[in-house]
């Protein structure tokens, strides 16, 4: 599960899918996770980074991460293998 390679993510939170012409915005944490996904980090690594930086807990990050991935999936921003 990876973010599609051609998805453009700007520093200001603007996301563009050239396949469909659709644009999105994300909040700073969303943007940060997108950046980490682009770097190829897996869930455990993303969670570690978030826990280092923010006042939260493992369970919350896990729940919210998967919810976020589901949103990315729904918006067809995820590349499925095979």
């Amino acid at each position, binding site marked *: 599960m990876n973010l599609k390679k051609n998805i453009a993510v700007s520093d200001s939170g603007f996301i563009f899918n050239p396949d469909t012409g659709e644009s999105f915005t994300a909040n700073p944490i969303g943007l940060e996770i997108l950046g980490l996904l682009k770097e190829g980090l897996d869930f455990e690594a993303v969670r570690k980074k978030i826990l280092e*930086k*923010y*006042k939260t807990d493992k369970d*919350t990050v896990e729940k919210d*991460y998967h919810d*976020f991935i589901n949103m*990315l999936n729904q918006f067809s921003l995820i590349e499925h293998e095979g």
Partner: protein
Amino acid sequence: MEKLRYERPIIRKLESAMPNKFGSRTELLPKTHIDGVAVKELIDNYGSPLFVISEQTIRETFQAEKKAFTTRYPKVQFAWSYKTNYLNAVCNVFHQEGSWAEVVSGFEYEKALKNGVSGKKIIFNGPDKTEADLRKAIANDSLIHIDHLDELYTIIELAGDMKLKPRVAIRVNMDIGVYPMWDRFGFNYENGQAWDALNKIMRSDKLELVGLHTHIGTFMLTAQAYGTAAYKLADLALGVQKKYKHKIKYIDMGGGFTSNNTLKGAYLPGADTNPGFEDYAEAITSALINSDFEPGDLPLLILETGRALIDDAGYLLGSVITNKRLSDGRRNTIIDVGVNILFTAFWYEHKVTPAQEFTHYAEDTVLYGPLCMNIDVIRENVSLPLMNKGDHFVIHSVGAYNMTQWMQFITLRPKVIMIGTDGEAHLIRDNESLESITSHERMPDHLKKFEL
């Protein structure tokens, strides 16, 4: 390095269609304090959920309404509508401001007496006054507003029996051009019922007809409807004066004024569109002054406004239980405030504001209460800043009807705090406990034991 405040990640598709006519998010700043007391501190000290009432707001709102009427009309009296919020501390703020009591049951009547209101300054409304209630009200020389003929006959009988002349008014219902017409209470103006009742009172010679009362509806969005009602009551009063040479001492316009709440289905926020005290005052006083009363002989104007005086002084604080998604992808947030304590969620789109800092990101959210019941919906669709589990929020304008119509259902009712004009938080109603509920129950002997 101190860690940053966490916010759940969101991504939103940008739409280039027409702007949403219902607008975007409305919450721009968190509501961290109420009258200088921190919301977090209140919840830490008194629990969540928690009702909070601002004494300062009650007094300011009362003074605003009083000013609107007294600058337009020479004789005005307010009577606090007990059913709207009969917590004793709340009632006493209004009594300190000079309000009489307006009650609609024997229970409320007793409450007013116990609060120290003189019987002469209690207005007794409502369709269900028992004979015992009426005896007490007659003995105390209270103002009895008659709702139906059976009550009238009972009062005439009691007056003879007690050898007292009760002070009475009749409640009048009428067509004021607003749907639905509230014609279930009192006597109708147009079809002659009101005159029939007035004739019976005047000819009995056992009652003192002191007033005329109406209460045209609730959350009235048209101030002019009150003008029509005042005109019709003035017409009746002048008719009685002409026919019986008897002066009606007061005209009671009841209540039904709006608060800042937004009715369900309204296009625009109530705070921007609902009439204000000035609008109601202008409609009512203009109708009375323009009627045929002699300028120096206007009747006393009584107002029983409840909601408009207390709603905006009440807050309900709560906490987020969890964030979820519905099957269609919509965000839903479950909070610890349910419709059992926020009855008015059935009527209004209550304003909900997070109680801690938030970013400018928001999500369309369904706000559910904690009850295991499908009806437990606080907001069907609200654009809310992102809140985490355990975060606090403030629901605004909950002072009217919730602390009287709340139900002990599934959960126990919470504490009520009043932030006094001294800036201190005062506990004015304790939370319920298991004991406070089960102490009313009785167990038959044969049901005391069981084996599983």
